């Protein structure tokens, strides 16, 4: 599904290399997790993949289902099936959550040459999916993320994911700012989307999210590279011993 090949990325504004040769392949149906200390480049990887400004790819590439995505505009990547659940979902005063969801969904459908969803059909689907995430009518009506609690914002991200049905979902520290109940709710939302045709890349600091969203593979990222990959037990090792052991092992 997602294939990242020797990806080197520097900041556009300053001469600072963040990613120094990332190799990663996430097959369809799989859940991969990336863990790593602060400043290792995890979030940069998610931003570069989704097309945020400010980064320059100096070497290597990334492909979604064989198609180079790094040359695409962010909206083209979304239409191609990429989705980033933001670590800090953006507040957009004045744009209703429903309007936002419907605009996004129909823009993607149009880009893919599909018909737009009618208002009635859209409403039916969004109500159903919102209900399972405990998102009430009021949250749907309010402006996007404005006045939402941390947990509400993250649930709203998962609702967007559920509505847009992407092929490749990247979750950037979705557990940050969540209490135990909210984490369970969000994880259930994610798990409900697990599917043979869909892949996940879960970026997190902590093992506890991976108790809920069980990964097939765990990667450890440090200093702009994937330094170690393994099964779910790798996450437990990090939880128990920190990163120091692993980092010294691979150094």
């Amino acid at each position: 599904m997602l294939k990242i090949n020797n990806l080197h990325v520097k900041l556009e504004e300053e001469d600072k290399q963040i990613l120094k040769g990332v190799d990663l392949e996430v097959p369809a149906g799989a859940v991969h997790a990336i863990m790593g200390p602060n400043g290792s480049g995890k979030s940069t990887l998610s931003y570069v993949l989704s097309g945020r400004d400010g980064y320059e790819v100096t070497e290597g590439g990334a492909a979604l289902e064989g198609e180079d995505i790094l040359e695409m505009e962010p909206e083209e990547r979304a239409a191609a099936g990429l989705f980033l659940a933001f670590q800090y979902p953006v507040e957009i005063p004045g744009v209703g959550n429903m309007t936002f969801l419907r605009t996004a969904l129909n823009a993607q459908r149009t880009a893919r040459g599909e018909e737009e969803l009618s208002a009635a059909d859209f409403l039916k689907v969004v109500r159903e999916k919102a209900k399972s995430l405990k998102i009430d009518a009021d949250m749907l009506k309010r402006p996007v993320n404005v006045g939402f609690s941390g947990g509400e914002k993250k649930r709203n991200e998962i609702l967007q994911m559920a509505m847009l049905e992407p092929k490749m979902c990247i979750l950037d520290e979705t557990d940050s700012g969540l209490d135990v109940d909210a984490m369970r709710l969000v994880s259930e939302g994610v798990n409900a989307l697990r599917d043979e045709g869909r892949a996940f890349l879960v970026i997190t600091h902590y093992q506890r999210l991976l108790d809920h969203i069980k990964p097939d593979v765990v990667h450890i990222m440090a200093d702009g590279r994937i330094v170690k990959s393994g099964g779910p037990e790798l996450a437990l090792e990090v939880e128990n011993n920190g990163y120091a052991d692993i980092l010294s092992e691979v150094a």
Partner: protein
Amino acid sequence: MALPQVKLDATEARLAPLTLPDGAVWATKAREEALARFRAMGVPTGRDEYWRFTKPDSLNAPEAPEAALFEGDENPAFCDIDRLSVVFRDGVFDAEASDDLTLEGVEIARLADVMVQDIHWAKDLYGVLEARGQDPVVRPFAALNTAFATDGVVVRVTGKPSKPLHFRYLHEKTDSDAILHFLVKVEEGADVTILEGGPAAARFNKCFEVDVADRAAFHHVRSQGRDHERRAVTHVFARLGEESTFKSFTLTANGRLTRNEAFIELTGDNAVAHIAGAAVGDGDFHHDDTVFITHDAVNCESRQVFKKVLKNGAVGTFQGKILVKAGAQKTDGYQISQSLLLDEDAQFLAKPELEIYADDVACSHGSTSGAIDEEALFYLRSRGVPEAEAQDLLVLAFLAEAIDEIEDEGIAEDMRTRLEGWLLRHRS
């Protein structure tokens, strides 16, 4: 104080092509007094405090500068709203194109007919609120309007008419110089909605005098015409009685020069005045909102919400004042003026003013100027919304607070649709 010679000369030059219209004794008196006011103030110059942001030259010119007609493909504003239309062509009432002026709960008459009648209620309003609004800041073009207007409409609202009145201004001659004057007297407990739409003329001078009696309500929504080269100077003077409501919203898209002034006095306790505007300009566009709200009663609320979206050299200006007189306790005053500058060439000039002589009031004001929020833009794009569409969505979101001031959802939707259309046509 004597005016400088250069101002005197310009003032007389401005008056040269004009003659005071004939009318009843009271009408002539009102016009002569207005002319005297105008002569005493003189035409504005860039040295005058309230004309530093807006060049008055094209308004001072004796003849209207030419303005090409605009071939729009849009339906006229409010065409889907059930309404009573009063049509003016280049500032002249067109009875044929207008609806029948009878409607329950309201008396409507043509100003030209009223000004020759010996006895008419208009006598107590014509030029009266305008004259009050000349202090402490002069508004010469309003005095000029009172002196020379021959056409317009006078409206006395005694009930709750079943539909809005719509003043529709057609622009058909490239050199037309229109002056229209309107009186709206909303009697106690009455409630009316007035819509205005259209470019009106190459140069348009319009004056509203609105008296809202106790427990009465006046709703006003206007869409200024899209002719790129038109110029307009408009004034609304309003007096509000006890527990009365005044709500006004203006959409301005295009126009080489627009100066919209409002002078609103809250004279009865518990009155509410909201005035809002959304202006969008691309290129040769100068839009000026100059607002003066006076609180002269207890527990009144006023809101000023002005939003401007500017690009490609367009200029927006805002001068807004809240004056709270001694004794106007429990005043709740709010003022916000904001611009969204879509490129480096657009300009926004703002001058918020508060002057407060009561000690138990809550007044807030804010003025900002900024660009599109890149974070929000990326967020929308990352969800698949194409960049241009995402930007339009954010622009509409920026304007929402102003549009939300329109109470009638159908009319608000009409304004939103117009803005969407404009944004679509002006994508860069």
